[in-house]
Each structure stands twice: as C-alpha cells, then as structure tokens.
C-alpha cells in the first residue's frame, strides 16, 4: 500500500486550491471521466474524504465537510451530444448552466434550469436537485434528467436511463442521482430533456398572485418578492396576450427574473402549495423573501436568529425549513436540514452500496449521511 501522500501526489488533474472551497490536501480537476474513476478508486483505497465542487453556488446545503481532496468538475466541460430535433442534450457535469442555456437559446430551446445561475454547473444543479422558477410550468429538474453517468464512491462508472425522452428501462438511477448531493457518486455526465423556448415572453405585475395563477392557465412562473408579484408568461404571441387578458393586466415584453436574495443567512421554506400564503405570513417582517406560487417554496433571508418555531410549523404541515447559506457557527448550532426523512436507514443502505467506504461528501445529506 502506497502512502497517502504519494497517493495524493499521483492523482491526475492537480490544480491550485479553489477560492471559496474548504482547505484540502489536494485539489484536482479531472479532464475526463476516466480520470474521475482513477481519482475515486485511489480515494476509496486510502479513505480520502472527497468534496465534489461544481460552481460552488450550492455548497451551502447540508452538513459542513472537512475534505482531504476537493474534486472540481471544471475540466468536464464538453457538450457531448446535442439533438435539437429530439429535444435532448448530453453534457458533462462541469458545463456552466448559463453557457448551456445560451447555446440552447440560439436554437430556440431551453433546459428550464435556474434562470439566474451565476457560476452554477449543470452537474451541481442536478446533484443539489435545484430547479428554476419555471418548474411551475415544466416541473422540477428531476423530471427532465433522462440519463446520468455516475462515478461511484469506489470508482466504478455507472450509466442509468437513456437518451430518449420517455423510458422505463430498469431502475431509475437518474432520479436517484438528482438531489443526491454527491453522496452516491460524482455526477460526470447527464442527458436532459429540453423544451422549446416560447416565441413570445411577457411579464405582468399583479396584486393577487393566487388569482393570476389560476386565471393565466399555466404561466411559466408566478413569483412574489417582498409584497410585489410578477407573473411570467410564455408561448405563442396569441397565448401570451390571451393569458394577460385572462389576468386582466397589461403585459410588458420579456422576462426579468429575480436574482438570488442578498444576505449571508438564507433558508428554503418548503410547504404544500396551499400553505404558501400562511408561510409568507409566518416569516418575520425583517426577513426578505421570494415565493414561488403554485410550487410551495419561499426562500428567505434575514438576521441569524431563532427559526425553531418556523421550522416546527413547516414540518407540521409536511414541509421543511432548510438552511442554504450561513456562517459556520450557524451550521454548528443548528441541523441545516431539520428532522431527517422517515426512511433514513434505507437511505443509508443505498448510499453504502454506492460509496462503501463513504468518502464522497460524507455528512452532507439529511441525518448526517
């Protein structure tokens, strides 16, 4: 058995430490899926805790990590297979969401990924199970993941799903990977289902978002930010006009999506859609918020304070209050997820079968998995 130091030195794709990432003994940015396999094979042999890093935009979710290796997906940046007529695109994990959407938009298509992604990568968005505002219309990201290549914690390359828009061939590894926070494997490549980008796009400002949501019949999104509500419309020009007429308000051309909330402490409050209004009312007045009507998520930002009552309420209606950004002391004081899901031992059994030595992002998932 080689020493840990020489194992670390032998890892392919060594790069300088990444700004914002926790300190580690080695930082690697493999340029191929083969290199990811090599790295994880070595890491599992030597029990090297490995943190997977995409754009670093969603590292605030879950337990804090103390990695030996940081594995950046920045080197996996190819668009592997784009089939505009089939409405599919296959990309490596490190492709930036913004770059992908720009490329797709040139062909009149969208992956309906988050609209203001910053540096986020496709792999990171899938791993965190993040959806954009348009999930109100197109469903969450997990419904559009057709195929995944995972490199498991013991360095095996596993492919699940397929590059077709409808498929029931075997167990659904793509859905299992979505929102797995790197716990099963490094998501190295994904195939996504695409939608045509609506030829007409418009925005309507309304007083009553709930009424507008029903009247517009399937708008792209209804977003309420600090008391002001916008309805995002899309489709043929006739559809957008029809939707605006049904709402009864004038339409402005284009979409101006809200950016991420400011603030060092942010939470995602998730409730059944019918409880959204109550949720907004439950949030303290000194917090800023963005609410996705019809979906049931409110992102809130405010002073680092006591959230026990809010979390208790959210969990009592079948939801959750999840910490998504904050200072380290806050994570030390509070479980970022809250009460873990009921099927915890089953979750553990699955993780263990994909990452038997438990080197990938250990402690990030709910319940300290």
């Amino acid at each position, binding site marked *: 058995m080689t020493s840990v130091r020489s194992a670390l030195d032998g890892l392919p794709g060594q790069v300088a430490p990444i700004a914002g990432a926790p300190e580690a003994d080695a930082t690697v940015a493999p340029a191929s899926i083969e290199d990811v396999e090599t790295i994880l094979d070595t890491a599992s042999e030597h029990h090297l805790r490995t943190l997977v890093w995409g754009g670093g935009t969603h590292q605030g979710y879950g337990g804090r990590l103390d990695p030996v290796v940081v594995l950046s997906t920045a080197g996996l940046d190819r668009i592997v297979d784009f089939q505009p007529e089939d409405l*599919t695109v296959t990309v490596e994990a490190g492709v930036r969401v913004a770059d992908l959407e720009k490329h797709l938009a040139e062909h009149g298509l969208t992956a309906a990924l988050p609209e203001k992604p910053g540096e986020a990568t496709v792999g990171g968005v899938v791993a965190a199970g993040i959806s954009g505002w348009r999930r109100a219309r197109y469903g*969450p990201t997990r419904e559009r993941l057709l195929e995944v290549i995972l490199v498991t914690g013991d360095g095996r390359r596993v*492919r699940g799903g397929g590059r077709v828009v*409808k498929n029931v061939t*075997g167990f659904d590894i793509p859905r299992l990977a979505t929102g797995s926070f790197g716990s099963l494997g490094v998501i190295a490549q994904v195939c996504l289902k695409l939608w045509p980008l609506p030829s007409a796009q418009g925005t309507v400002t309304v007083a009553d978002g709930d009424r507008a949501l029903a009247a517009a019949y399937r708008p792209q999104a209804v977003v309420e930010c600090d008391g002001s509500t916008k309805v995002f419309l899309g489709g043929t020009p006739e559809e957008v006009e029809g939707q605006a007429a049904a709402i009864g308000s004038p339409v402005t051309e284009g979409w101006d999506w809200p950016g991420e909330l400011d603030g060092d402490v942010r939470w995602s409050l998730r409730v059944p859609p019918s409880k959204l209004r109550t949720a907004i009312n439950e949030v303290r007045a000194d917090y800023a918020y963005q609410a996705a009507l019809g979906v*049931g998520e409110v992102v809130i930002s405010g002073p680092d304070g006591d959230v026990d009552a809010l979390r208790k309420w959210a969990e009592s209606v079948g*939801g959750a209050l999840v910490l998504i950004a904050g200072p380290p002391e806050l994570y030390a004081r509070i479980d970022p997820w809250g009460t873990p899901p009921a099927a915890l031992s089953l*979750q553990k059994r699955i993780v263990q079968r994909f990452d038997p030595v438990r080197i990938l992002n250990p402690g990030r998932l709910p319940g300290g998995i």
Partner: protein
Amino acid sequence: MTLTAELRDLLGHDRVLTEPLERWVYGIDSGVVRGDAQLVAFPETTAEVASIVRLARHYRMPIVARGAGTGLAGGAIPTQPGLVVVLTKMNSVEIDLENATAWVGPGVINLDLSKQTDPLGYHFAPDPSSQSACTIGGNIANNSGGPHCLAEGSTVGHVLALEMVTADGDVLVLGGPAPDPLGLDLRGVVVGSEGTLGIITKALVRLTPNPPDVRTLLTAFSRVEDAAATVSGIIARGVVPAALEMMDQRMTEAVERFVSAGFPTDAAAVLLAEVVGLSAAVDAEAAIIEEVARENNATTLRVAADEAERAKLWLGRKSAFGAVAQAAPDYYLHDTVVPRTKLVETMTRVYEIADRHGIMMLNVFHAGDGNLHPLMAFDSAEEGMLARVKAAARELVEVCVEVGGSLSGEHGIGIEKRELMKLVFNEADLDAQARVRESFDPDAVFNPDKVLPAGSRCFDLGRPPLEGMWV
C-alpha cells in the same frame, strides 16, 4: 399451520383464493408468459398488507403485487410458486382540492379517478389506453404513459408521495406534499420499479387542471415520412402538443372496421394532434399544426368540430388494440422507444423484419416522444409461428437499440425483456441497479426474477464497506 390457514385467519375465507381455476386466472396478466400463482390474497388495509408480507416471509413464499393485471410484460405473475397480492379492494380516494392532489388507494382504476375529479375541474394526466381497467398502483409500478404524456410526462411526474410496505413488513412513506422532500428521492426510484421494491398501499398524486379549451386535429398523409416530418416540424415551430399520435394504414383499417372513428383508410399514416389551453392559444397552435401538415403534403386536415367528434377520434385511437384483438386470433404488442428523428428509419426496418418472418405487423404509437408500439397479429395454431414471432420481436428491439433507443417507453421490462437489459446496460450498470434493489429487498421476496437479468449483482465489483459502517 399453513400459509393458507393463517391468511384465512387474517382475511377471512373469501379473500384468499386457492382453487385451481382461480389460480389459473391469476397466473397470467395481459402478457404472454404464464406463472404459478399458489395463493391469491385480497387485502383491504395497509395493516393487512403488512401482515401478509410477514406471513409470506415466514413461509418463504415469494410475493407478487397485482393491480388489474393489464400489464404486458409479465410483471404481475409469479415466476416461482408464489403468493399474488391483489390490491383492487384498496380503492379509497381523498381529494385535497386546495393543493390539487389526492391520496388514493393502489386499487383505484385510472379512469375512475379522473371521473371523480372531473366535476371539480381536474383529471389525472397519465392516460394509458387501458385506463378504463388498469389501476393507479399498476400505473405507478410501471411508470405508465399514455397519449397525453407527451406534454405532461409519465406517471412519475404525477406522484408526490407513496406509502409502501417493505420486505420487513414495515410501512414507509416516501416523498411528501411539499416540493423537494429531504434526502434521496426514493419515491422516484419506487415509481417504475415494477413491484420489486415493496407493495404500494397508498399514493399522493397530483391532479391536473382541466384545460379551458382544446383543439383536436386529424391529419393524414400518403407517406409515413411526411407524417414523421410533420411531427418534427410542429415541435421545431415551438409547439409541444398535448398529444401527437400516429397510426399506420393497416391499423387505421382495423380501427375503422371496429369502431368507425372517421379515419381515412387510404392514407399511409394518420396523425392525431391535440393542443390544450386558453382559446386564443389553442387556435394559434392549431393554425401552426395545420400549416406544418400542409407543408408536408397532408391529404386530410380536419379540426374536430365538437366534443362528440373529438371523443370519436380518441375512441378510435384508444380502441386500436381491441380492434386487432378482434381481427386476429393472437397478437403480440411491443413497446420500444427511439429518438424521434429515427422514427422513419426504425419503422422501415421494423416492417422489413416482419415481412422477412412472414408476420402481419401494425403500428400505432406515441409519435411525439418516439414511443413505438409495433403489433404483430398472428395465429399461434400455425406451425412454427410462435418461434417466428419471438425471433422478429427480438430483432425489432435490437434495431431500436441500434438507432439509440431503449427497450421500453411505458410497458416496462417485467419478465419479457429481462434478458434484453444486457443490450442497453453493461455489467457495472446492472450491478448498480441490483444494488438499489438489494437495499430495499435483500432477499428478493418481492417479484423475484423481474426487471434485472439473473446474476446482475456482481459481488466482485467495488470495495468492501468500512468496518463499523452503518448497514
């Protein structure tokens, strides 16, 4: 005690079947493989299901869940002498209108759910052609699709949470009513797992608002290529219709003889398109579809004038299999999926295969998502016919895989396509799937021999777990 006696103590005499004729009935589903149903039990509650699982395990009897038995891949039959648990008596429906969801028992019939929610302005979007018979539990287990899954997606997108009895006889709830439930998406894995991970005893399903307006268009073409180009053309113009269904000439003829839906029988392909939404929106989209169809030399172009005509067109589409069943002594319905752009190439090759084997082949399919349903009609009494049908079936799947497609778009793998899994997945891929199954059901008590080929779990892949790791 015997398992029969203990089950009768639990459920009463009438809810446990053991007679040869009864066992024969439950020994087959709508597929072609016969299994061995030793006992058939009809639970009414989740607690009864849990007790049944514990008893069956005690007597080492494999357990196969069953809904209506309309599955086409042999999913609901015991391959080894086994206990069939029929869920059709668990058919409660609790609607939550505020959230547009419902908790439903697995035995609720698909169409019944939509009928119950229709007066409230909602329906359950997945609409398999078998919807008047198949159950929600079966839909979930098979992740079933239907014509309207083009825009709405298959069943998995319409299931928020599941209550399930595990191999230990425990009751678990996976998923939940709020977005993005915490942890791994086990709900998403159980949907489509064909009864191999547990018995679904309740499901929280999403209801879809009935559209304010709808346009249904009938178009026909003298060449299949033109119909396929129309499908691609519509989507290229930015319109994803609610449904885009195609039928070839033989199928159209069979349907017309059966129900007279008004399909032109002289066309090589009939394409049914439907758009839903606000009136202004559907008019504009219907106009685009008409334009594209015209550009591609449509020989028939008609918008259904009223709800009666629309219903007739859909009756025609959904009666396709019934029409064939009436016309031929036997039929074998296949389900494969290819990238939409490969439709014409695939169909040409699929017809060639049928011709070469001297088998009559008809096609009706979900053109919008490349989901083919080649249907072979034959007489099994004819010498050597079954062998030819099986050989042709294998070849047609191979062609679909070769052009980048997959084994099944909606019917599932079951026992039928289990060995074919090796055409699309390698050893490591299958091992990973076997690991998922093993995590839920280590002793394979639920529906053994389904989905994954024998020997999928390769214990020599990967590293042994760390000492002291949680198991």
